[in-house]
């Protein structure tokens, strides 16, 4: 009951941002995909690959993923941006509004309060960007609509972007919970998350991407837990 009350509060506080992000991604995706399903196969590939009528098509080009490439680029920056916003909302704003004291004196253990925030952030990212992305994938993989449906790899890459949003969220939390000065160690959490995100985005090997994402999440999660449980408010 306490956890649910805390979770509801955190979700409600983030709701405008979650809706905005989810709808924006959906809008961008549908704007891109919407016109495509009206084309014939040839017109479609002309449209997506810049081919001219009569041009010989290399069969390998047909295997290139393309349908979700543009929405994917949007997701690649939107997920970290949403992670940053949620991190600020959950851990930074209470410092400015001075509501930590009120919140922490509720009859709930500190880990419960923290888990409510982390669950709200994860659920928020999953329900807004994750749901929109999964819907776009479902829309793009229907053979009756698109000649060559989008591969499952596109779905996975989107979910990795969403996991990177969580990386930035935790980095923001670590920085917000630090009591050091900005120009000293306080920036480390956010800087580490940003560098790790850029590095992971530069990789191609899916195994490495997943491994490093999990590792980064584990490091930042342990730092967030340690900082939150021990911090003075």
């Amino acid at each position, binding site marked *: 009951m306490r956890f649910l*009350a805390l979770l509801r509060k955190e979700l409600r506080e983030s709701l405008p941002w979650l809706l905005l992000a989810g709808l924006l991604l959906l809008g961008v995706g549908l704007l891109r995909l919407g016109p495509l399903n009206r084309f014939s196969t040839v017109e479609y590939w002309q449209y997506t690959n810049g081919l001219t009528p009569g041009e010989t098509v290399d069969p390998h080009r047909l295997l290139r993923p393309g349908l979700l490439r543009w929405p994917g680029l949007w997701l690649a920056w939107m997920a970290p941006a949403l992670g940053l916003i949620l991190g600020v909302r959950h851990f930074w704003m209470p410092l400015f509004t001075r509501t930590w004291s009120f919140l922490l004196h509720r009859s709930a253990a500190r880990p419960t309060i923290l888990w409510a925030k982390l669950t709200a952030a994860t659920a928020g990212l999953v329900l807004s960007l994750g749901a929109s992305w999964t819907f776009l994938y479902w829309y793009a993989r229907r053979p009756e609509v698109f000649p060559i449906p989008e591969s499952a790899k596109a779905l996975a890459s989107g979910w990795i972007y969403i996991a990177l949003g969580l990386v930035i969220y935790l980095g923001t939390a670590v920085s917000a919970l630090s009591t050091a000065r900005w120009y000293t160690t306080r920036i480390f959490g956010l800087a580490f998350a940003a560098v790790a995100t850029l590095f992971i985005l530069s990789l191609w090997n899916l195994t490495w991407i997943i491994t490093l994402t999990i590792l980064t999440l584990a490091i930042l999660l342990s730092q967030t837990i340690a900082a939150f449980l021990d911090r003075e*408010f």
Partner: protein
Amino acid sequence: MSEIVLETKDLTKYYGATPALDHLDLQIPRGSICGFLGRNGAGKTTAIKMMLGLLHPTAGSAALLGCDSAALTPAVRQRIGYVTEGHRLFRWMSIAKLERFQRAFFPEQWDDRFFGDMIEYFELSKKQKIKHLSNGQRAQVSLALALAPNPELLIMDDPTLGLDAAIRRQFLEGMIELITRQGRTVLFSSHILADVERVADRVVVVDRGRLRADCSLETFRASVRKVIAKFPNTAPSEAQIEGLLHCRHSERQLEMTLVDVGDAEVADWARQAGAEGYEFIEMNLEDQFIEFTAPPNHRRLFQWEEVE
């Protein structure tokens, strides 16, 4: 002796090399209404936050309802009401949403009727959002939220700060409502000494991080006294009397603030010092507090040059 519900032992907090609170020893028995007094920066908020486990002591410890403050369990927190300084609540919530949020943490204790009555008494509507409330109204909501679970111990950090006289009166009446419930203990810090005088039966005074007084209000009122002694010729610049806090002298007068000095001792001193007479000056609690916590070398803010 009645049960101790709030206890600190050598409670100390340093920020860097600066002491915010220095070896505070307190024992507040059940049923006390304790005014926690001190000037700005005296260490009141720091002490309260350490009592509630929101700050870590540099040394010493605190215990509320027998539980170490560093490890207050949710079950113990449930029995403690806390009104934060500035009444910081979630601005986006309406009073009704805040009530629902708060109720979730006190499933068995929450008194719906009491909360509703208090909101009605304060002439507020549950539909109002916190961000649209004035500072005074936020204070009222804050008090109602803290009282509705019927806490055994209520801790309030300067709850009447910034409130006008009418709202303060309402707030205090709300507080008295709690006090009338048997066995409740209240610790509240305040700068409004008239409020303290009205409701408190005990005062704790901290000054620059150190405990200066912990006694009943009557004892404090009786202990801090001001005496003006008149001399036939020039008044001495100093007085040798135990319990002297400050003295100011003008040409033929010596004004002294004394603590724990009896009538007989004052009479003896006056005779020895050659005073031709003396009188005790009536002081209210605010005057007593200001004299009691004034620095030893305190000077007037403006010192006008006397014009011959």
